[in-house]
């Protein structure tokens, strides 16, 4: 056979390609740490593009919070085990600034993270509390806040996004909102996907045709909303172009997965990381991890054959059930790569509440692995598994990121923490005795 084993030597290995893994790689790149990243696609393509920090503390009547920083201080008192309660506020701020600046420099501009949450529109036409939104969605936040005269557009053949639904859900709060349906230019009939429209809008001629269609039905609108389809690789340019062609600001509303903002992030990372010197092994799961005195060895393979990564430090950012970081078995929840102990309800009966929408949330959504102050995973005796192993993201226990609207917050802040801790180990290892 012609397959050849490939070996890489690196200071840091990041396992996982979700938001936490990507954030860890960004922080490592910014610190000039030689890094290799592996892990299958993860859930990043499912994101809305909104970056939550903390939107709900699960207390009070609705639990919805406007001030995430105050919310984190409440967590420190009420949920001290929550990962966000264990990271200094200054670090969380720095992490968000660094993360969003990196995205902006690579072509997806985000609003500067501030002091308060914003109200952003969801695919269903409800609103949610989030922290930082892409520039292509900012005009929607502003328009909602001042209840501007606005038309929401949708497209024939596009499932999972209905302008009428968005309007119906928001109408009582936003009376000057109306809906229109159009046909996307030059698209064959049948089901069409946001991804396909977004790529078509990378072509200037398609933008012109769409811009002309929308201009015709704009009427008195001060702003136009549409599903997230404004280009894949240059969304800010597509938005600026469309806005000019239509004659008013335009904004995107996230769609149901598979959504463009998630694919945008994933493709951007996959393109930019290797350019910045990172060794990226996309789409492949790490099969095993071996710790010896001199190194940590990761074993995996791709179509072309086996790959070995020799690392000084490792960040485990493998996520929960969707990405395979945790697995639910008959008799309990396991962490399959290293068999780390998983904090979980005593019995399966306690995984879920009897009602799906129960306000308390479901216990299974708080399970995960335990870490110490340095974000190093702990074994069943409470000791550090290995001083070179760190963890980040939603694999961490004691947080229900869905209910808490804190998925990106946990991912980005814990990745920041894990990288700064790994960096100390790397520096120590390179320093002469």
């Amino acid at each position: 056979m012609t397959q050849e084993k490939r070996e890489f030597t690196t200071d840091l290995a990041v396992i996982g390609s979700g938001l936490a893994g990507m954030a860890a790689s960004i922080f490592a790149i910014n610190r000039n740490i030689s890094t290799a990243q592996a892990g299958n696609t993860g859930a990043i393509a499912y994101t809305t593009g909104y970056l939550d920090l903390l939107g709900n503390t699960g207390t009070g009547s609705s639990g919805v919070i406007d001030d995430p920083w105050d919310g984190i201080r409440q967590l420190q008192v009420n949920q001290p085990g929550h990962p966000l309660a264990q990271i200094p506020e200054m670090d969380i701020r720095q992490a968000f600034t660094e993360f969003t600046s990196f995205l902006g420099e690579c072509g997806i501009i985000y609003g500067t993270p501030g002091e308060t949450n914003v109200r952003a529109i969801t695919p269903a036409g409800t609103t949610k509390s989030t922290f930082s939104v892409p520039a292509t969605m900012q005009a929607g936040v502003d328009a909602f806040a001042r209840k501007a005269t606005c038309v929401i557009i949708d497209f024939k053949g596009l499932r999972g996004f209905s302008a009428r639904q968005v309007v119906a859900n928001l109408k009582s709060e936003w009376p000057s909102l109306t809906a229109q349906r159009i046909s996307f230019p030059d698209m064959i009939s049948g089901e069409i996907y946001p991804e396909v429209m977004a790529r078509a809008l990378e072509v200037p001629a398609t933008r012109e045709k769409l811009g002309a269609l929308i201009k015709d039905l704009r009427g008195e609108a001060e702003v136009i909303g549409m599903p997230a389809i404004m280009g894949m690789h240059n969304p800010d340019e597509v938005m600026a172009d469309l806005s000019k062609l239509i004659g008013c600001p335009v904004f995107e509303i996230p769609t149901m997965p598979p959504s463009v903002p998630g694919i945008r992030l994933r493709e951007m990372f996959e393109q930019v990381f290797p350019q910045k010197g990172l060794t990226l092994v996309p789409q492949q799961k790490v099969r095993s991890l071996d710790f010896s005195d001199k190194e940590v060895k990761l074993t995996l393979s791709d179509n072309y054959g086996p790959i070995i990564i020799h690392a000084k430090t490792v960040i485990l950012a493998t996520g929960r059930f969707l990405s395979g970081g945790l697995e639910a078995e008959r008799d309990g929840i396991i962490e399959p790569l290293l068999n780390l102990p998983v904090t979980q309800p005593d019995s399966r009966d306690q995984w879920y509440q009897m009602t799906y929408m129960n306000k308390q949330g479901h216990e299974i959504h708080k399970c995960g692995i335990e870490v110490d102050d340095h974000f190093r995973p702990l074994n069943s005796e409470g000791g550090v598994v290995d001083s070179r192993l760190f963890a980040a993201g939603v694999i961490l226990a004691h947080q229900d990121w869905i209910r808490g609207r804190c998925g990106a917050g946990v991912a980005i802040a814990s990745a920041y923490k894990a990288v700064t801790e790994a960096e100390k180990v790397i520096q120590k290892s390179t320093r002469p005795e």
Partner: protein
Amino acid sequence: MSDAKITTINFKEKAIELLPEGASFDACLTCGLCSSGCPASGIENMDPRKFIRMAMLGMDKELSTTPWVWTCTQCKRCQHVCPMNIDISQLVFLARGNWPKEKKPAGIVRSCELTRSTDSTSAMGLPPDDFVFVVNDVLEEVRELQPQFKNMQAPIDKKGAHFFVNQNSREPMSEPDEMVPLWKIFDIVGADWTYSSKGWAAENFCMFSGDEEAWYEVIKKRVDAANELECAVWLNTECGHSYYTMWNAVSRFGMETNFKIESLVTYYAQWIREGKLPVNSDWNVNNIKFTVQDPCQIVRKAYGDSIADDLRYVAKKLVGEENFIDMQPNRSANYCCGGGGGFLQAGMTEQRRIYGKRKFDQIMATRAEYVLTPCHNCHSQMEDIGHHYGGQYNVVHFWTLICLSLGILGENERTYLGPDLAEIGL
């Protein structure tokens, strides 16, 4: 039309057998990333997600008969974007193989039959003697008319040569001058190479017809030919699926090879790095823009991003860094053009062009005037969709541009250059 019936496959059972380690159809979230990212979605009212769901629901009759399997190029992009790593192309391969020969697209079947009809393994049925004649004839002409190459060689059946070089039949059959730039490159770098009179051809439509036995038989002839000549490397030239059909078959069928299977693209990059191929972009004084098409068969389905990076390295050296514009998405995530999988030979022109619209949009978004690609099927498809949808770009082989850059591209070797480059270096 024949009366042959298509038998029904139990897709769920087969799917479970074929699952890669750790993957699970139960884990399919029906999220639709596969369909959203597939240019064949919607054609014949089918898409990859629907295919999987129908398989899980036991709708075997529908799946066994849907013509969609001939519009899926088995490019594996669905698997590439799937968080659960589900490989739908294997089921498509099974479905294709299950169609009675009389019902399969005639063009693919005929190409497979022709491939098996001579020792050349040429899908155009060019016999060994004719191939040898054409090569010698063209060589003689070049030696005569291009004095710089009066000692150029195009060896055939040279035992112990380092490279066993394959050739897409299209060149000796219909555009023999297109072989010359490749020979010149070998001449410049001093490569020790040979053609073989047997098993020299590159293409393999038996694989695309889903006929595993015929696929094996074709590859066996090629493997035997390369083993017999005791070459160190079986070198795939600018043809995507010919690499995959050989590389994949060797492990699939457990064949013994005394040679490595490699792509010419990696050697272009290596020879440029080593200074053996002193290309530059000085000729591109008008800053003509170029993009690159990643053939699925050598990038996503085989080498991965490493060969995609080589393609870009070579392209940038040839045209100038600032004149290279990448398609989006690119490398392993690039779209299939719609020319592969036998689509070009299947006679389904309308469907193929619908499929190709995605590639056309990608090319138009780059605003490049030229597309470089080391693949014949990509080449033909991108030319066709360019004409069909009104694109103004040209599609060229790497060998053309390498020789153009070196100032050694002959007058008859410029078929694919636009008028802007037709005269350069003559």
